[in-house]
């Protein structure tokens, strides 16, 4: 607890992004509001004859320019992206030269990255019965968070949590709770995931949740649109510096935006199918945590995967919670532009939410074309919209039934 047992206000003082829309927050945001795409035909490995041939790898990402040869060898793609995103976030928060960062924690989300990174080691083992010594430390799910702690000298909490597609939203939520309760004053949080590899692509494809529009990659993922047929697997990292308002003020750093609330729920229902009730519960708890009524939410950054089922259930959940007002809230999924970044999705979407409050601009839902009678909200099709955005509800609903929602608010 802070002074007098009061809860600390939690602010965002730094952000960094590596995404299919580009590397760096400014590039990411400009591309997002311009309606650009990060979806493309996969060229990193042979996809000929496959049902799904589309992916969203990171753009403008040049790890060799930022990392030593040794780091490049020891760090997986996921860890490398996390380092680059964190460097941007810590720089913006003016922590790279500030001793205050010593006590900072690192809490990241990651989902399938360990499985993806270890695949070459499995393959080599079955061919040669040998595994490189770097295999384990490079592929462990906590590798990215550890890399941040080591590189930047952060001595606080250090762990990675996995709740599939809700991982980094929970990571930010836990960081929020730790700061709110005064346990940590600064936490470097978010998530990183790199899972575009042949085995995982085939696994997602077998689940029939990926878009199969191979002849038109840029328009493959169409959240909430009647003709939607699934998501596009993407890779990226989003890192935020969360800080108590008192710490930010004492250090004299600008406050970019705020984390006002965190809500969660477990469907206790099914490994892959979503539950409307679970989603409503998580959104409701986020509002309670923020001390806000549904009327106070200006915009929703949806989970919006672009699968037929997710978008229908999420729409229905939003309508249940927001009632007659649901139709007048802009509900946007950025997955039509960046793909589904799995363990990094919630972090990059939280950053998009913060940017929305900073610029008073709502990005479009890219590739939305046609109204589905069961998805009848305002999805901001086509072009970005200028409007005052004081609060954003950012949703992440995961396989396994783990739901996480954040309320992000304007700095002042």
């Amino acid at each position: 607890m802070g002074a007098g047992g009061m809860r600390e206000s939690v602010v965002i003082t730094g952000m960094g992004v590596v995404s299919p829309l580009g590397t760096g927050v400014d590039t990411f945001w400009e591309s997002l509001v311009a309606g650009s795409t990060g979806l493309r035909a996969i060229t990193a490995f042979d996809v000929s004859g496959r049902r799904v041939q589309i992916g969203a790898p990171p753009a403008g990402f040049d790890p060799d320019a930022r990392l030593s040869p040794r780091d490049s060898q020891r760090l997986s793609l996921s860890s490398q992206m996390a380092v680059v995103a964190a460097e941007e976030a810590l720089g913006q928060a003016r922590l790279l030269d500030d001793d205050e960062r010593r006590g900072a924690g690192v809490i990241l989300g990651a989902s399938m990255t360990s499985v993806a990174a270890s695949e070459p080691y499995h393959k080599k083992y079955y061919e040669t019965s040998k595994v490189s010594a770097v295999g384990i430390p490079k592929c462990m799910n906590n590798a990215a968070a550890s890399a941040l702690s080591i590189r930047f000298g952060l001595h606080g909490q250090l762990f990675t949590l996995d709740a599939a597609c809700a991982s980094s939203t929970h990571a930010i939520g836990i960081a929020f709770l730790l700061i709110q309760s005064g346990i940590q004053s600064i936490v470097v949080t978010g998530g990183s995931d790199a899972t575009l590899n042949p085995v995982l692509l085939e696994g997602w494809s077998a689940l029939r949740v990926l878009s199969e529009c191979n002849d038109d990659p840029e328009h493959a993922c169409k959240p909430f649109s009647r003709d939607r047929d699934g998501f596009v697997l993407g890779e990226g990292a989003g890192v935020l510096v969360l800080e108590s308002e008192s710490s930010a003020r004492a250090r004299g750093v600008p406050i970019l935006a705020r984390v006002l609330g965190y809500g969660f729920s477990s469907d206790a229902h099914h490994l892959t199918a979503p539950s409307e009730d679970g989603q409503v519960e998580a959104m409701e708890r986020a509002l309670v945590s923020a001390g806000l009524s549904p009327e106070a939410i200006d915009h929703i950054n949806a989970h919006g995967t672009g699968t037929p089922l997710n978008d229908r259930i999420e729409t229905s959940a939003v309508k249940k919670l927001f009632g007659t007002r649901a139709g007048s809230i802009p509900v946007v999924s950025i997955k039509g532009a960046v793909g589904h970044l799995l363990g990094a999705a919630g972090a990059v979407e939280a950053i998009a939410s913060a940017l929305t409050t900073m610029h008073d601009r709502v990005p479009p839902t890219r590739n939305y074309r046609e109204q589905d009678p069961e998805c009848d909200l305002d999805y901001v099709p086509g072009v970005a919209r200028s409007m005052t955005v004081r609060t954003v509800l950012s949703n992440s609903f995961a396989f396994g039934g783990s739901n996480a929602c954040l309320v992000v608010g304007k700095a002042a």
Partner: protein
Amino acid sequence: MTEHEVTEQARAVLVRRLKVDPSTITPETNIEDLGVDSLDLVTLAGEFEEVFSIAIPTKEIMKIRTFGDIVGQLSSKVGAAA
């Protein structure tokens, strides 16, 4: 391959995967009544693709309601391949 052979092979896949009594599976049987959920359905589709060396489009999987629907889809594809 005859439709009868397709039916028997498809039934064998269901029996192996769902641990159900083969006599409970008729063309009219609703697959939900066999306990098939959405994850079972796509898993079964993958097995059918392997067993019959065919590709089943996702849109067609989503139309399946009965065992007869399965046999109908498989028969048309196996026939088309022959």
